[in-house]
C-alpha cells in the first residue's frame, strides 16, 4: 500500500538556504544542494525548494541550483516561488525538477494551472494554497480563506472552493499551508487539512506547524493528509527524517524505510 510521504522544505534566497541544518557542534550547511543530498540519504521521500529570491534578475541562480540538485538526488523534487508563467515552469522542469508549485500566480491567473497541466501533465503541477481561518461568511462558507503574497493579501476566495477549482483546472496535487499554524511548531491545522483532503480527489501535502513527531502523526491520521511538509523540526536537528519515520512506523503509519 502507498506510503505517507515526509517532505523537507528548503527556503532558498540568492542560491543559499535561509535556514541551514544545524548539526550538533553548530555546523551549518547553507548550500541547498548539500542539504538536499543530506535529506535524500536520510530517507526523505521528496524535497521542496521554495525560492524567495526577491529580484527577478537573480532567478537564474535558482535554475542552476535545480540543475545541480537533479544530478545528486534521485527522488522527486519540486520548486515553488517565482513561477509565474508557462516559460518559468518549463525552465524549472527542464532543469530537472519533477514538479512546480504555483500559489499567488495561480490565484491571479487560474489559467496558469490548466495551461501548465496541458503542457507538462497534471503530475507536474502542484497548487500551493496559503490559508487563514476567518469567520464563515457568504464568500467563505468553509471559514477558511485563501491569502496570497506571503499571507499579506486576503482574496475573498474560499479555500474549499479553490481546492476543488484547482483540481478541476488540472492541478495534480495540493500543498496546503496554514498561515495560522506556520512557524508556531504547535501542530498542523488538522481541521483544515482534513476538510481539504477529504474533499479532494488529488493528494494533499500538509504544511505549517510541525514541532514534534506527534504533530506529524496527527496530520497523517486525523488530518488525512497524504504527505507532511517539515522544515524547522529537521533543519534545527530536533529530529532527523529517520527518527520521524521510525516513530511513525512504530505507531502503524506506513512510511518508506530505507534502512
Amino acid at each position, binding site marked *: 500500500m*502507498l506510503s505517507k510521504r515526509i517532505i523537507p522544505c528548503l527556503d532558498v534566497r540568492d542560491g543559499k538556504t535561509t535556514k541551514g541544518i544545524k548539526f550538533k557542534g553548530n555546523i551549518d550547511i547553507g548550500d541547498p544542494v548539500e542539504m538536499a543530498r543530506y535529506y535524500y540519504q536520510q530517507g526523505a521521500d521528496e524535497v521542496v525548494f521554495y525560492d524567495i529570491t526577491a529580484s527577478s534578475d537573480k532567478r537564474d541562480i535558482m535554475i542552476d541550483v535545480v540543475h545541480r540538485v537533479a544530478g545528486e538526488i534521485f527522488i522527486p523534487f519540486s520548486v515553488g516561488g517565482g513561477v509565474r508563467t508557462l516559460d518559468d515552469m518549463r525552465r524549472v522542469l527542464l532543469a530537472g525538477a519533477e514538479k512546480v508549485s504555483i500559489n499567488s500566480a495561480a490565484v491571479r491567473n487560474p489559467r496558469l494551472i490548466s495551461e501548465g497541466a496541458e503542457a507538462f*501533465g497534471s503530475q507536474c503541477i502542484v497548487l500551493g494554497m496559503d490559508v487563514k481561518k476567518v469567520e464563515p461568511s457568504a464568500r467563505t462558507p468553509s471559514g477558511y480563506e485563501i491569502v496570497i503574497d506571503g499571507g499579506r493579501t486576503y482574496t475573498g476566495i474560499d479555500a474549499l472552493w479553490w481546492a476543488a477549482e484547482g483540481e478541476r483546472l488540472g492541478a495534480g496535487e495540493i500543498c496546503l499551508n496554514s498561515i495560522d499554524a506556520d512557524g508556531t511548531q504547535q501542530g498542523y491545522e488538522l481541521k483544515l487539512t482534513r476538510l481539504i483532503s477529504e474533499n479532494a480527489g488529488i493528494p494533499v501535502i500538509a504544511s505549517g506547524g510541525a514541532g514534534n513527531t506527534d504533530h506529524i502523526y496527527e496530520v497523517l491520521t486525523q488530518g488525512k493528509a497524504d504527505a507532511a511538509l517539515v522544515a524547522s523540526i529537521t533543519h534545527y536537528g530536533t529530529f532527523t527524517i529517520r527518527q520521524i519515520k521510525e516513530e511513525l512506523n512504530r505507531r502503524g503509519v506506513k512510511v518508506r524505510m530505507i534502512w
Partner: protein
Amino acid sequence: MIAIIDYKAGNLKSVERALTKLGFACRITPRKEEILCAERVIFPGVGAAGKAMADLKVTGLDSAIREAVLAGKPVMGICLGAQIILEKSEENDADCLSIIPGTVKRFPGDLSGNGGRLKIPHMGWNGVDLKKRHPVLEGIKPADEFYFVHSYYPSPSEEGFVLGTTDYGIRFPSIIGRNSLIAVQFHPEKSGAAGLRILKNFCTWDGHAE
C-alpha cells in the same frame, strides 16, 4: 551505448542523469538507426497512450522497439513505456505495440484502503511483491519502495509475464517482462537507491531472463 528513446513523451533528462551518475554512457535520441545499433534501449514516457502511439507510428519508432526486442537486445520500458508494449489501452482506446499480450486498464474509481477512499492517480511510494527471479531485479529487497505516478496499469493476459505486483486497493502488475524486455510501471530514476539498483542491473544485463 544506451539509447533513451525520445518520442516527445515527457522529460527524459532524469533517466539520462541517473545513468550518467551510475557511470553508463547514454544518449537521448529520436533516430531509428541509432536505436537499432545501440547496445540496449530504454523506453520511458509520461502522458497519454493515444498520442504516444501516434507519435511512435509517424516516426517509425514503433517498429524499432519491436525489432530491438526481437533481436534479443535488452529493452526497458518505464511508466507509459510499461503500458504501450501491450496490445491495447483503455486510455484513448489506443492500439499499442503488442509485444506482450494483454491490455492496459484504468484504476477503478471506487478503490479503498488505508482507511479511506484511494485517490487517482496512484502517486507516491509503494512496494513491489516480486513474483519471479530476474537478473534486473537482483538485490531488490521486500521492503524496497518505488515512486509511482499513474492512473492506468498494464495487465498481461498471462501470469507468466508478471514479474512483480503492487497493492493499491487492487493488486496490479507493476513489473512485467518477456525475453529481453523488462518494464516497470514506477520511475526507477526517481526511486532512490533501490531504483538506481534496477537501472544499474539493467545496464549490465545480457538480455536473458533466466
